[in-house]
């Protein structure tokens, strides 16, 4: 039994689509209202069916929660948006009889060899990407709607339960918080420290080249190795760091034991691991900062700090943006090996990141459905973070002279 029958859902989608497109076609594309309404209705229906047919409209079943309903509506909106945007691009060009597959770029020195050779050259890349990236992604979508266990003889369709249960799962919300706060701390610390060191190492001092090499190598070590080495330093029994601080200052920090400290241990190890990468790029960026700007500012009476923050730092912003994205990716994904060797996600889940949780769920607990759902959420978070950073940076980033 459905609370709202699929027919009504589809009709509503058609109506909304028709309204949006009719308006849009008339005002923006200078095309007829009727055409817009017709295309919009079709696209609305297609978008709604695109997401709801695989789900069998389960989110609108009577026995479902309000949350399922909301998720269903959001999904339909997303599905409709995808089809509507495509239709908005496609239909006007069809009406104007443009060649859809024409290439905008006028390539220099192209071979006149027809379609076959370039497709043959592209085939291996496209095949691998399709089979090992796109297909797994669709399979993840399918898995995320199932109650499925690795090795179980059966699986059961459970609609969006794997998603709708997440907000009520305290361990999930905790790892969400952990992931974000650790990523934030890693990015800020790694960038600030690297910038400081890069500015120092960039100065015309003796041995600058040697300094540079001695500062960047930790990036070559894998997170796994970083985890092993830091386990030696922070080990509760033979940990050398506590021995040193204990005998010098009488302070022994529970590096791995205290849920308030352990995330900082991971952050410290991560920053150590990735700083070399940042330093490398900041030094390269500093080499592109024009010195005449600095000199002009110096003549105007700006002190070193003012010059740095008014001139150098803004000019480095494209690099900073690039590093924010790569460091965020590192914090979300690459810390897995480090965490696995250093804390195993503990204590009390204080170092369980979203990625670690997906692995624990999917492989250790063999709960494929939940793991798939959580990895999709993680995927969307990564896309959102990238897009937000990209949009934010487009406004503020100064692309150097």
């Amino acid at each position: 039994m459905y609370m709202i029958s699929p027919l009504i859902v589809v009709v509503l989608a058609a109506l909304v689509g028709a309204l949006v497109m009719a308006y849009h076609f008339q005002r923006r594309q200078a095309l007829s209202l009727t055409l817009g309404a017709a295309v919009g209705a079709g696209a609305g229906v297609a978008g709604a069916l695109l997401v709801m047919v695989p789900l069998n409209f389960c989110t609108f079943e009577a026995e479902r929660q309000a949350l399922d309903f909301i998720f269903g509506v959001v999904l339909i909106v997303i599905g409709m948006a995808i089809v509507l945007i495509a239709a908005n691009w496609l239909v006007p060009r069809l009406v104007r009889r443009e060649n859809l597959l024409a290439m905008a770029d006028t390539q220099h020195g192209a071979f006149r060899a027809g379609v076959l050779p370039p497709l043959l050259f592209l085939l291996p890349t496209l095949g691998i990407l399709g089979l090992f990236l796109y297909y797994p992604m669709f399979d993840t979508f399918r898995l995320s709607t199932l109650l499925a266990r690795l090795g179980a003889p059966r699986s059961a369709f459970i609609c969006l339960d794997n998603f709708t249960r997440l907000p009520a799962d305290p361990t999930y919300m905790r790892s969400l918080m952990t992931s974000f706060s650790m990523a934030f701390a890693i990015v800020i610390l790694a960038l600030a420290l690297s910038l400081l060191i890069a500015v120092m190492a960039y100065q015309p001092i003796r041995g600058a080249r040697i300094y540079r090499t001695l500062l960047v190598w930790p990036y070559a070590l894998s997170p796994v190795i970083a985890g092993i080495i830091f386990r030696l330093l922070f080990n509760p029994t033979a940990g050398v760091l506590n021995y040193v601080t204990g005998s010098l200052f009488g302070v022994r920090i529970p590096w791995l034991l205290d849920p308030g400290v352990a995330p900082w241990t991971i952050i410290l190890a991560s920053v150590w691991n990735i700083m070399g990468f940042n330093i490398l790029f900041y030094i390269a960026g500093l080499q592109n900062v024009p010195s005449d700007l600095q000199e002009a500012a110096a003549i105007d009476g700006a002190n070193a700090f003012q010059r740095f923050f008014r001139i150098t730092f803004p000019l480095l912003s494209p690099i900073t943006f690039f590093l924010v994205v790569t460091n965020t990716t590192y914090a979300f994904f690459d810390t897995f090996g480090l965490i696995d060797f250093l804390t195993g996600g503990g204590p009390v889940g204080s170092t369980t990141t979203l990625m670690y949780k997906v692995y624990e769920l999917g492989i250790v607990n063999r709960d494929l459905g939940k793991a798939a759902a959580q990895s999709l959420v993680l995927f969307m978070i990564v896309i959102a973070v990238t897009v937000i950073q990209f949009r934010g940076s487009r406004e503020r980033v100064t692309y150097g002279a």
Partner: protein
Amino acid sequence: MTKRKFNFLFVLVIIASLLVAIAPGAAQEKTDIEVWIAFVDFRLDWAVDVANKFNEAYPQYNVTIQEYTDYEPLLDAYTLAQEQGNPPEVIQLFEVGTQFALDSGWFRAVSEIVAGREEIGGQAVAFDDIVPVVSGYYTIGGDWSSVPWNTSTPIFYANTNLMEQAGVEAIPTTWQELEAACEQFQPLKEAGTIAGCITWPNHGWFYEQWLAQQNELLVNNGNGREGRPSEVNLTSDASVNIVQFHKDMYDKGYYVYSGVQRDWTGTVQSFSSQQVPFIMTSSASAGGITNSALETGFDVVTSRMVYDGEVGWTGNIIGGATMWITAQDDPAVEEGALAFLLYFNNTENAASWHAASGYVPIRDSAITLLENVAADNDLGWDIDNKTRNALPAGNWFELNPNFRTASDQLGESELTLATAGAVFGTFVETRNIVTQAIEDVMLLGLDPAERLAAAEAEANVLLGEYNQLYVE
């Protein structure tokens, strides 16, 4: 190096690596039997040595041993290997995986392969020789699903030198005595000589032991032994009592927590480096701990796992693992695997295994053999040279009292549904849930009863889902 030379080398490296990548494997002739075990230390060496001897004696087989770091990763890897369609012939599976293994349909029951015979491939079956605690746990309706190997129980290890230093006279046997002894160790802790009084891995296994000691069930339907269980019970008085004990020990600074769950390694290290005077861990560490204490220069005495003196002691559950045979299309491979496992656990090997590690001798005949070790024997294990050597003649248990504790503890246990141990499909996951709950209570200072209620709900959802997929 000139650029041209560099380029040339570069191309060479690429071609060479592609060639290596596509090199074909060698052809096989013998019946291959791959065995996965969860040990990477001398226990692995011991197993490899037995496998080599078997291969020599029965050249039609080629038994290879592959090691994993622990039971959990081994089971994870096996599950993945099953998914890939190339599982090994035999795996070592820990006791809590029993029901899951039965439900998975991946394994051939040993009784089915034996089919009433008394000898398989020249090896005597002799299951009636297996000690009762072991057969009680692993047989369901008198049938063997797997071949037992390493059987252990948690015992108490005490550093008597540190005890002397603190003026602690007797090794504690109850929670109450333990707390009193720990109080006496506090000055040493404050002086920085030791990190605390006691440690044990934060692992659901210890919780399960204490539950059994108090004669309480973990799941309904007679701990799963009278029917498929439908509910996990983590909120019983006995259960809350255990977690409260954990919390008290931690809050008072007696219990040293390494911060890592299931940390067998770190806990033993703190004991071996004399950071803690007491440790509770598997009897399987008896050999290792005794040896490293000898090297470091202190004395170790083992005794039974402490229990709540106010409730009393019913008994302990056995722990450890058994060997499961993957169901094959070819019965000859299954028979070969079983022949190896019977050889692996014959009287001499069972005795040697106990003497090398501290695991309980699983055959009555092995106990008899150890009580009367002859002058000329091949039962000892030389860790450094990885070979068998001779044990001192005489009664092994009298010469090595530390190795007796485990058998005594199990042998004197009263057999009830609680001490027989729970059987259910999500035992592995439930154990992790309990471990997490205990950690949360200790480190976050949560209320034991409330946290256990949440853990119970979580465990019940999992069990429900499991039953939905595996049981009609």
